[in-house]
């Protein structure tokens, strides 16, 4: 006789209670709204038989690459991922293969830390409630209706009481509702925008096609680390140039992963001092008459007093500045060396190589321009590059890569998606600007007087002090009450990603309301009042994603929205109804139609290399199946095949018709083929650049490349520069793109944390002097904040320079004020410079052993899990 069967018979009380319980709950009609329900056996059997299929899944991040990512989906569950296997890989026609981040996409979408339900900060109420609790309050799960009502009511209240100018942030909805203040400035491209515009007419933002890079004898990579900053094919493309015989020289404060992969020679240079190094190189070239004088005379203005642009002071030419003709300071390699830390002999040798090796490609990243008064680097880089005459020829070029996706590509766009057909909605408070994460990015019209908004780095001061610089208008008052970040999902997370997090938190704790939508509790949502659960791109209809100019990726919906996540479009439509707008006016066409439009409008280059034709063949049946409006058309690939395959890539070969030599016609005949600059030539002396920068009202620069010490540059690490006595913040910090994440996106994924531990990197001799060793937890302090991190010591880093990857999710210890995650923006100050560029790479810090508890590896930290 078994025990429990018998014992059960004796448990009379329990059985009686059971009957009572069942009866009571039945009377109260407490049917769980969650749980399992009976379905018929046929439906169940059908579901059981589902075998799963590969779907092209978006990898949508601002990472510098664009790769093919596929998910194997069984009944809404993704069991595995793969990358590009649509064709055989070759150097000419490479597969678009994913990186550690793309292959972790599943971990982001299905992470336990997804925001699952609308949530509200417990002590928020209309008007703010206990504002000081932002970032440390408890959260309450609320219903969608409650969330939407609260958000809409508060938006209406703030608008009617304080006006649209009290709303910071824009979106399609907000622009329909009167607009909001725009944060503007330059992040990614640093100071490059204005020099490109005025000195080159954006001429040097384009490059020779990648096939032609294989003809170079020397390739200089200035501050570039594509192995980390442009994952995907760029490093592989550059490797082909190396195999074809190019020598690679890398200029960087550290021997980077790209240097290790491609480099033949490494030139160290301190952050923020690149202009000095370049000017020292120019001295060597002038001293030895190595410059390409014919090219300078024909194609540029401002190099010497005989070739000045109209109206310029002849004494203000570059050559005489370098020689010190008028200021008495010869900008010799020795002069440069004191500033940039590079050995004078190395400077001379480097200058000799670039001046005499032809053809040469002289290319830079944006990083050295992400410094205080960063325009001086851009001016010096272009000037010295042009002095070598490597422009408009095969295997030659002087350019800064136009965003990461273009690194190593250049050339024409061979295939591109069409427009999605959603009409643009301009912000009434910021003419000509629409909305989105990049709404005010590289705002280029400082002489305008009709815009409302402030520089990225002035946002928090504007909130705290109720005023901001409005360029030529000077300071204007403001009263910011609401921070709005219910917008398309781009990972836009400026509280974490803009300089001055500590000040930012203070500012966030001042306003009446902070509303966001998010897929996980990113920093900006952590300090918000209401966070709405957003879908990832895997839960949306799909889109065409572009990256490198040779391929497009066509993604599809992988799964239905998880938990209570919704698309931004749905949120905007629901909010529109509540604030008295017509949702169909805000979104006149649906997401499916938008995807269809972009496919129907997609174009591919013809074999002749000049004209474009429709990419996709669409039949009447396709249009019916999709349930969209459209017309049948003939193209090169059927809609079904393209969607199934997930990408379209134009095959390449060295002798195809797509190769482009940037500026060939201009260099051959600059008079007949002028550039769009004021003089029609490349402008070494550029008054309009100087004037435009002055109009912003932050810093000034001369019309030619000169070196002036930046705020928080190497000079500021000294108490006495002349006597070389170090000051309170003796190290220079520069921040790098870190392979663990795409800016701040992916930082929550444990397996990426494990692979890339966010270490603070320092030279070994510096560490020894401070009594620090590898693995120690160190305290890093700047004038603006403090962080702790595990230390990594290496001889590959320049002495006096330290680095940390940007984008870690700030984690403030409320007792000590220390950021345990090591967000670089905790350390970077909110300096106002140039066209509003974020001067991240000019930051001074000090380092010491941390006396508190040592840090756990990031991979072992708890995730931020809320609803």
């Amino acid at each position, binding site marked *: 006789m078994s025990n429990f069967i018998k014992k059960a018979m004796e448990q009379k009380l329990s059985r009686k209670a059971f009957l009572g319980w069942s009866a009571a709950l039945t009377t109260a009609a407490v049917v769980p709204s*969650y749980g399992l329900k009976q379905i018929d056996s046929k439906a169940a059997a059908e579901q059981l038989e589902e075998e799963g299929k590969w779907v092209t899944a978006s990898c949508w991040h601002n990472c510098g690459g664009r790769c093919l990512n596929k998910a194997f989906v069984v009944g809404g569950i993704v069991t595995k991922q793969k990358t590009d296997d649509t064709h055989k890989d070759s150097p000419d026609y490479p597969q678009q293969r994913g990186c550690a981040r793309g292959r972790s996409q599943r971990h982001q979408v299905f992470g336990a830390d997804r925001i699952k339900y609308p949530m509200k900060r417990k002590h928020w109420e209309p008007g703010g409630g206990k504002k000081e609790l932002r970032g440390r309050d408890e959260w309450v799960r609320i219903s969608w209706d409650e969330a939407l009502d609260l958000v809409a009511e508060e938006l209406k209240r703030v608008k009617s009481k304080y006006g649209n100018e009290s709303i910071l942030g824009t979106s399609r909805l907000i622009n329909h509702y009167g607009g909001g203040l725009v944060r503007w400035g330059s992040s990614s491209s640093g100071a490059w925008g204005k020099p490109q515009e005025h000195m080159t007419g954006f001429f040097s933002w384009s490059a020779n096609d990648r096939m032609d890079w294989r003809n170079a004898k020397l390739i200089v990579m200035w501050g570039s680390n594509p192995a980390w900053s442009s994952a995907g094919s760029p490093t592989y493309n550059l490797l082909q140039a190396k195999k074809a015989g190019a020598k690679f020289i890398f200029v960087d404060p550290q021997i980077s992963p790209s240097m290790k992969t491609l480099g033949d020679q490494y030139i160290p240079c301190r952050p923020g001092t690149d202009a000095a190094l370049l000017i020292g190189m120019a001295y060597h070239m002038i001293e030895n008459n190595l410059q390409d004088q014919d090219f300078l005379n024909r194609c540029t203005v401002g190099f010497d007093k005989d070739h000045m642009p109209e109206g310029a002071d002849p004494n203000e030419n570059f050559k005489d500045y370098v020689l010190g003709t008028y200021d008495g300071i010869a900008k010799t390699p020795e002069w440069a060396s004191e500033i940039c830390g590079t050995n004078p002999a190395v400077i001379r040798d480097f200058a000799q190589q670039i001046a005499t090796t032809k053809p040469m490609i002289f290319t830079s990243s944006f990083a050295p321009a992400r410094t205080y008064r960063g325009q001086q680097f851009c001016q010096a880089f272009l000037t010295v590059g042009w002095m070598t005459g490597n422009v408009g020829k095969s295997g030659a070029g002087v350019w800064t890569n136009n965003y990461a996706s273009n690194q190593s590509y250049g050339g024409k766009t061979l295939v591109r998606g069409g427009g999605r057909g959603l009409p643009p909605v301009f912000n009434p408070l910021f003419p000509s600007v629409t909305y989105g994460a990049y709404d005010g990015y590289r705002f280029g019209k400082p002489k305008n007087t009709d815009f409302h908004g402030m520089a990225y780095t002035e946002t928090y001061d504007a909130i705290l002090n109720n005023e901001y610089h409005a360029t030529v208008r000077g300071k204007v008052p403001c009263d910011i009450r609401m921070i709005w970040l219910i917008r398309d999902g781009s990972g836009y997370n400026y509280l974490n990603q803009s300089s001055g997090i500590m000040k930012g938190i203070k500012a966030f704790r001042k306003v009446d309301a902070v509303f966001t939508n998010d897929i996980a509790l990113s920093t900006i949502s952590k300090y918000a009042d209401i966070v709405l659960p957003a879908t990832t791109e895997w839960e949306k209809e799909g889109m065409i994603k572009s990256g490198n100019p040779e391929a497009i990726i066509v993604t599809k919906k992988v799964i239905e929205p998880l938990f209570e996540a919704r698309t931004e479009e749905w949120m905007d439509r629901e909010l529109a109804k509540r604030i008295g707008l017509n949702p169909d006016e805000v979104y006149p066409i649906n997401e499916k139609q938008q995807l269809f439009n972009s496919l129907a409008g997609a174009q591919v280059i013809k074999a002749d290399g000049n004209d474009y034709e429709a990419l996709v063949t669409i039949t009447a049946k396709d249009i019916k199946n999709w349930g969209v409006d459209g017309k049948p058309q003939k193209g090169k690939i059927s809609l079904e095949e393209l969607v199934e395959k997930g990408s379209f890539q134009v095959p390449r070969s060295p002798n195809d018709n797509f190769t482009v030599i940037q500026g060939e016609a201009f260099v051959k005949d600059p008079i007949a083929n002028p550039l769009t600059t004021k003089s029609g030539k490349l402008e070494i002396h550029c008054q309009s650049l100087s004037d435009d920068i002055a109009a912003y009202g932050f810093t000034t620069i001369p019309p030619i490349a000169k070196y002036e010490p930046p705020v928080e540059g190497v000079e500021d690490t000294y108490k006495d520069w002349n006597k070389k006595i170090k000051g309170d913040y003796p190290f220079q910090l520069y921040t790098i793109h870190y392979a663990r994440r795409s800016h701040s996106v992916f930082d929550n994924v444990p397996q990426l944390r494990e692979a890339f531990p966010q270490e603070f990197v320092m030279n070994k001799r510096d560490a020894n002097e401070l009594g620090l060793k590898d693995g120690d937890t160190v305290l890093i302090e700047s004038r603006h904040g403090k962080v702790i991190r595990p230390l990594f010591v290496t001889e590959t880093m320049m002495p006096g320079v330290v680095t940390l990857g940007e984008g870690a999710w700030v984690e403030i210890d409320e007792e000590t004020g220390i950021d345990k995650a090591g967000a670089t923006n905790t350390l970077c100050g909110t300096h106002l410079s140039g066209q509003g560029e974020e001067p991240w790479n000019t930051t001074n810090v000090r380092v010491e052993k941390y006396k508190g508890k040592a840090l756990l590896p990031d991979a072992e930290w708890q995730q931020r899990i809320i609803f």
Partner: protein
Amino acid sequence: MNQLSVNDLTETQDLLELRTFAYDILRRVFLAEPTKEVVTQLQNGIIDSFPFKDENMKLNEGIEQVSNYLKTFTIDKNFEQLHWDYTRMFIGPYQVPVPIWESAYVNKDGLLFQEETLQVRRLYLKNNLLSMQFGREAEDHLGLELDFMYHLSNLLTDLVKEENVEQLYKTVVDQNSFLKEHLLNWTPQFCEKVSISADTGFYKGMAKILNGFLLIDKICLEELLARTKQ
């Protein structure tokens, strides 16, 4: 009926009912935030009637703990705190200390909606059951796994009445393997985490009840297997 006597089966009826009872309580406790109705029922003596109190120390402790908690509990004063305890631990607040999904424990990556979820879903489908939150909530949520056990337990009582021996045995086998391969595979860790993280005696106790009862049910199912095997 062949080898099994009607008596053999009828004797299991009480056990089957008690198991249904236990799983009904457990699923309601863990499936979602507490409701006032359920807590009131538990307070009105139900928790003290939880079966097999004396058969497992943990279970016994848990029942005592919940019972003690409910002695001073009033809806007006304590319900919000109790509700918060669930939300805080299993849904929010800032950092959830106790994920409530099997895959968060079993899957090496700690993700949701994983292979484990699919396995569990397939088992539900084999019994013609589907989550009401299909695609939005992962099927390996503790509440759903307990709900599955509840449904099958309920089904067993019907099958005994119908004397459907073949299906009866099959369902006991299913329950047995589900308990061993799924619930018992991760709930010990889950319960440990709850005992550390819960603020209320209610959830601390409930975790012990869950832990203790599942161990008892493992034995019950072995007995039922022996009893229903033809």
